């Protein structure tokens, strides 16, 4: 997995609550059997004016000029600023895959849906939960200031603003370690293989009908 240590980038403000995973990546793109290539269809229904199809060349599709990703000032942005309950809906990991493939490395929001939040950490994406008031102020600062950037430092758990002020954020220490080192969860779990086997043996004694 890709490591996340520090990220400095343009902030893309997506001013919409309850952004669901269908909105992030519509279902017709879930037919792929690969993990990559979803970036061009990120937010497809909001980003383009026509109905998107899998394996389509998106460069000639009509774009929605009002949508934030289509505004030149946010080109190359890597930090998504969002509203509450971001990522609600399905468990599709295609949602973080699409964000990552597009170039997003960090999402800042007042709250996230559980499964999406969890999926981000499996893909080198850092979701940061901040108080609603702070998120509001970031929206107020981003929108009028072209080229507005933030620098996210996971080691220090800080967000540095251009004016030098710093916002602290919280993160679970297991997830922090995993992102900083780009760890492979499966290898880590397999270090406990003996414990799993011992558990399984005890569980089998207790609930033999589960092992027939």
């Amino acid at each position, binding site marked *: 997995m890709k490591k996340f240590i520090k990220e400095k980038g343009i902030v893309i403000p997506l001013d919409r609550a309850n952004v669901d995973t269908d909105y992030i990546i519509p279902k017709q793109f879930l037919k792929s059997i690969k993990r990559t290539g979803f970036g061009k269809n990120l937010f497809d229904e909001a980003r383009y004016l026509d109905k998107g199809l*899998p394996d389509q060349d998106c460069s000639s599709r009509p774009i929605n000029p009002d949508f934030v990703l289509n505004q030149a000032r946010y080109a190359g942005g890597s930090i998504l600023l969002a509203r509450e309950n971001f990522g609600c809906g399905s468990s599709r990991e295609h949602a973080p895959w699409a964000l990552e493939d597009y170039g997003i490395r960090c999402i800042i929001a007042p709250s996230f849906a559980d*499964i999406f939040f969890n999926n981000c950490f499996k893909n080198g994406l850092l979701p940061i939960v901040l108080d609603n008031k702070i998120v509001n102020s970031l929206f107020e600062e981003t929108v009028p200031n072209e080229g507005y950037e933030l620098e996210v430092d996971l080691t220090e758990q800080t967000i540095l603003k251009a004016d030098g002020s710093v916002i602290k954020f919280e993160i679970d220490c*297991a997830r922090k370690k995993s992102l900083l080192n780009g760890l492979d969860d499966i290898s880590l779990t397999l270090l406990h293989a003996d414990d799993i086997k011992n558990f399984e043996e005890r*569980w089998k004694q207790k609930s033999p009908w589960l092992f027939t």
Partner: protein
Amino acid sequence: MTGKTLYDKLWESHLVKDLDDGNSLIYIDLQYIHEVTSPQAFEGLRLAKRSPWRSEANMATPDHNVPTTTSERAQGVEGILDPVSKIQVKSLDANCTEFGINEFTIDDPRHGIVHVIGPEQGRTQPGMTIVCGDSHTSTHGALGALAHGIGTSEVEHVLATQCLQQSKAKNMLIKVNGELGRGVTAKDLVLAVIGKIGTAGGTGYTIEFGGDAIKALSIEGRMTVCNMAIEAGARAGIVAVDDKTIEYLKGRPFSPSAELWDQAEAAWRELHSDDDAYFDKIIELEAIDIEPQVSWGTSPEMVAAISKNIPDPAQMENDAKRGNYQQALAYMGLEANTPIQDIKIDRVFIGSCTNSRIEDLRAAAAVVKGHKVAESIKEAIVVPGSGLVKAQAEQEGLDKIFTEAGLQWREPGCSMCLAMNADQLGEEEHCASTSNRNFEGRQGFGGRTHLVSPAMAAAAAVAGHFVDVRDWT
């Protein structure tokens, strides 16, 4: 000492060990697998040269993008017209063969929606931990199992290790007191709950549904309720084991038998929260206050009772909510203060892992019997949840009731719930749908979904607009 909740008991019985970093390793008894969220997980196993920890602890079926027309289904996997969908279904078949996983293939008579066939086959059992790369895995909690959706990385993790790294959720009890009124169903109950607590109300919690109204529900009704726990933000919803649970499991193909049954039953009967268990949050509702529900917006929390009007954004308490409501109404092409009963319908979908079981089909058939679908309806489809549900319905003559009324009788699959196959809404079409999500574009680009119970969808099919099924004759 304080007692334990059902969730506490399920968690503790599956705890392999607490890890140094604050997470825990939790053992998973069963993983359900489908074609959309698994190919990348199997590919990961291949690349790392890993094999499944316990291949028999997995069960697979293709459901998300299988076609539902009889002509396409007659030729099995080769009959799938969409080449991309066909590749995905074939990949599942090949992966299951390669890794030794039991699959109910598209042409198996027991094939169907994974959350319908799991309980139907008796694979889902009380006291289990169950995962699937699908958020509606919460359905299986209706049988006293701890079940929730996971992403593809975790699908691979469970395949390789039989475990998940997790931190424990908080406990919430949603207690529904009293008795539901006539014509008010499990679907209305859960939509009313989501309307009350919101789509993020359960985030970070496991929700136990309890109270007399839940106890009075059938197991299928409880599945409808737990299915939509995720729509309230909770990954898992659970209901305590009782006589109905035990009765439901008796004699199913994968249920234990003989001595093992007695042993299992004794263990299952312990699966309830203790009287003095501590819940971080308790929410109570009175069943008598719940009317048939209809969603009017683009989030499952945007619901209203059939007797009410579409809410007015101007009346909302803050700017954010006002904005959300305005955005939703603009997408839905609806005006504030319109009576819910005046919303006209173009299409009807009866199906999905929420409402495609035999009781759902019986309820819908009872409403349309002797009636005709309104002329203004472009298409009304009934998609049974499994091959066995379909066969049972046909034995009861429900298929005839539907087709005589002008509804189409289809083959099992997820169908128009997420519209990955050809079953889709056109732009700006309103659909009375028994599914679980009314997000923008969910049922087709520009489509407008209204979530309702099977009986309410059936009544809307006949009337061409929403009607109160309690007044149906």
